[in-house]
């Protein structure tokens, strides 16, 4: 057997599995999306139908807010953790990164424990002011949930980027007279740019497509994944849900592809 043949044999199972359970189904999804009562215009419904459009805008705004908040939080914490050595640092890092692969459902439940009807924040506010603050089931609860699973991932990326940063760059800027703030502004933050783009894109795409958290919080928060789910299971509106999923997939993919062309690294969503 030649080496060429062997390489092809190695590749064959992957090609078969991917075609059968990914490419074919996605093609089918595209076809179903185009063959409903609306025909091809189903793909435009995400923009033309006011209800869908509002949901779409909602989802994008929420994902963008999550991304920005996560980046700010993770940059402050990541820079701090990578730049200082103090007792308990390893524990702190572990605490900030262990929720890395928690599924969305669990995150939703954790948000309920924090800010739900029997939640900690409600209990504290009740004790302090006699008023029970409950926001887990609102869009702010969903925002918190998305923050919860974005923070660990982004902190890890930023810490890795900070570690790779040449300390000489900062020392050089200081030797040229730059104040600590100027060093951050002119040297550190620009150098972290690719990491911001990469991890921000992941946070954004993940928040766009996250379903488990919204599902657990289970109120009528209008986000795209929930809309697709209800159209499919409750309204049995296959073509619209197919078209919306394609739209969602294209947006998420485009954001990541764009980020990748910017930062040159491997960028992927998860969860």
């Amino acid at each position, binding site marked *: *057997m030649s080496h060429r043949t062997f390489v092809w044999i190695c*590749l064959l199972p992957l090609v078969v599995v991917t075609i059968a359970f990914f490419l074919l189904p996605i093609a*089918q999804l595209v076809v179903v999306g185009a063959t409903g009562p609306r025909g091809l215009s189903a793909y435009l419904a995400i923009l033309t139908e006011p209800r869908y459009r509002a949901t779409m805008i909602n989802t994008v705004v929420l994902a963008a807010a999550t991304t920005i908040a996560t980046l700010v939080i993770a940059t402050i914490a990541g820079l701090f953790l990578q730049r200082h050595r*103090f007792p308990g640092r390893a524990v*702190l890092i572990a605490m*900030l990164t262990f929720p890395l*692969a928690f599924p969305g459902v669990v995150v939703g439940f954790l948000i309920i424990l924090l800010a739900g009807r029997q939640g900690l924040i409600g209990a504290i506010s009740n004790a302090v002011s006699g008023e029970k603050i409950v926001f887990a089931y609102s869009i702010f609860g969903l925002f918190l949930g998305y923050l919860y699973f974005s923070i660990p991932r982004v902190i890890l990326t930023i810490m890795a980027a900070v570690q790779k940063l040449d300390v000489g760059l900062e020392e050089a800027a200081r030797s040229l007279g730059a104040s600590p703030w100027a060093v951050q502004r002119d040297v550190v933050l620009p150098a972290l740019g690719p990491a911001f783009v990469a991890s921000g894109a992941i946070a954004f795409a993940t928040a766009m497509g996250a*379903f488990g958290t919204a599902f657990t919080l289970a109120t009528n928060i209008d986000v795209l994944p929930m809309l697709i789910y209800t159209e499919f299971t409750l309204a049995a509106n296959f073509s619209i849900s197919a078209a919306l999923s394609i739209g969602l997939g294209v947006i998420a993919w485009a954001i990541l592809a764009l980020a990748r062309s910017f930062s040159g690294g491997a960028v992927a969503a998860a969860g």
Partner: protein
Amino acid sequence: MRDRLIFLGQLGFTLLVAAFLVVPVILSLSAGVTVNYFRGIQSGITLQWVRQVWELYAGEIFLSFVIAIATLVVTLVVGVPAAYALHVRGGKLSRVIEEIITLPLAIPGLAIALALLLTYGGFGSFRRSWLFILAGHVIFTMPFMVRSVMAVFASIDIKTLDEGAASLGASPWRRFRNVIVPNAMPGILAGSLMVVTLSLGEFNLTWMLHTPLTKTLPVGLADAYASMRLEVASAYTLIFFVMIVPLLVAMQMFADEGQKR
């Protein structure tokens, strides 16, 4: 003095973020072993909720393990040789294939699940078996295995090792067993941990693909969150943590190890 204040400010902020992540987990762990969460921990500590979860959801937990192991086996058998082939072959076609198998990372699980349902929903016996869920998990986790192994290949110049073994007269299959796989071990292990962790916790796809007879652990979790009392839901979450956290810790240790090398 100013440095000290900045340090304390950053530390305080970081601690706050850590608290945001950790406190809910502690709440959940404690709720799972509290007799009555509404009355608090004073009501006593009990394992009755954990036991109840076990009675109600042992099937789901078991099925999740079956699917996770099966997913691992498939991604190993399919993914490791493919990673090797993609690496040594190189070229445009390999990049396209890599790009395609990586797509499930970008496309939300919900869309993939819909696609699978719309394509194979009519094949009754396949649709009703856990193999349907397995297909979704394999597609979702495959890129992690392939990329993790390919990353190792890229870092150790596997091509030269392979050619060296070939010059000594080893057949392609022998080389694969004796040279490629042993050297790819760190990537295979890291990828395996990732695959098992993701499969155990997968919800987005699984929720759409499951039937009443093929519920997995996270599906059961969603079920418990929706319909059970808080203590039971917490106890179930506790069981999930007990299973998943060691995997996450192992994964983290692996990542640290990799950075040191």
